[in-house]
């Protein structure tokens, strides 16, 4: 393979989805659990992201962060700072962040009206 040619291959045109202003909700149970997770660090934020992969093509990624270098929009919900990367905003508009309290398969859950299907564990969607 000629590296001189590889330095300048024709760029593949990728249609980037439009950035949408995200509207999201957090259930009371999820707020309780977030309060517990944040503790006194209310200046921190919940980063709600999407990664490629998983059984259905996209995977949710929840992190508590001080800041991020991703281009994000910030939503304030009852004092909780929620960050949503603009690159994935089209996949996350309208989501509800819930918390399922059970021994197996419990934890934060995302109910996503944009998802056509989800895998069994609920972490992956299409």
């Amino acid at each position, binding site marked *: *393979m*000629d590296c001189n040619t590889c330095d300048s*291959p024709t760029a593949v045109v*990728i249609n980037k989805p439009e950035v949408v202003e995200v509207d999201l909700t957090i259930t009371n149970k999820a707020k309780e659990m977030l309060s517990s997770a944040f503790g006194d660090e209310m200046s921190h934020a919940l980063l709600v*992201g999407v*990664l*490629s*992969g998983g059984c259905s093509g996209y995977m949710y990624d929840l992190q508590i962060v001080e800041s991020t270098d*991703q281009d994000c929009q910030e939503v304030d919900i009852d004092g909780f700072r929620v960050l949503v*990367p603009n690159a994935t905003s089209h996949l996350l508009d309208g989501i509800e962040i819930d918390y399922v309290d059970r021994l197996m398969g419990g934890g934060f859950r995302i109910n996503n009206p944009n998802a056509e299907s989800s895998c069994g564990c609920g972490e992956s969607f299409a």
Partner: protein
Amino acid sequence: MGVVQLDAYVLVLRGKDSLSFIDGLSTNRVEGTCTTVFTTSVAKIIDMVDVIDKGDFIALVGHGPYKEALIDHISQRILGQDVSIGDASASNLVYLSTEDIEVPDNVTKFNSFRGWLIVSPSNMNFEITMSVADYDEYRVENLIPIQGKEITPKSHPLACGLSDLVHESKGCYIGQEILARMRSRGRQGKQLVRLANPVVDATTIGETHSLAIKRIK
């Protein structure tokens, strides 16, 4: 045998997330140079690609007619990851050699299950020493599938001889649930077989034997 030219595309992926990006979307564990398969949510093949890790970039070598489907599949999943895609198909030619041959420094050689894959700048004259018919005969003899004949969007990887490219213990990828279920239940449905001629619905016809995808009882 010899060297045959393939109808292939060469995509160049750059960015620190390129390998993990390919790993998360395909059937094999991708940690460097290897061969892997992209599948749909129902485990049908989008394309089989040779992943060539060149250090500062990753090359994906796949079947020419399947290029647009693969680009469409992967490009919408880049999201915020550090991955960019370039198309170097016009500046490279792809060959397959049944033997390990010497190549110049600016030619990339990779030993895949099909033979030695060779990616050469298109301005180089690489000698073709094997006809497509001879290559088909070699494939029939060695039970080697190729895209467009055995490896098609109608098949899943376990049916067309690509079981070795479906990693048994890697994490989730699109189509993984179906392939794992087929394996765990021992229900692979059809399989790639080599049968003596005449063969009904052969995918590749050889002189004495042919390849076909048949349901195994």
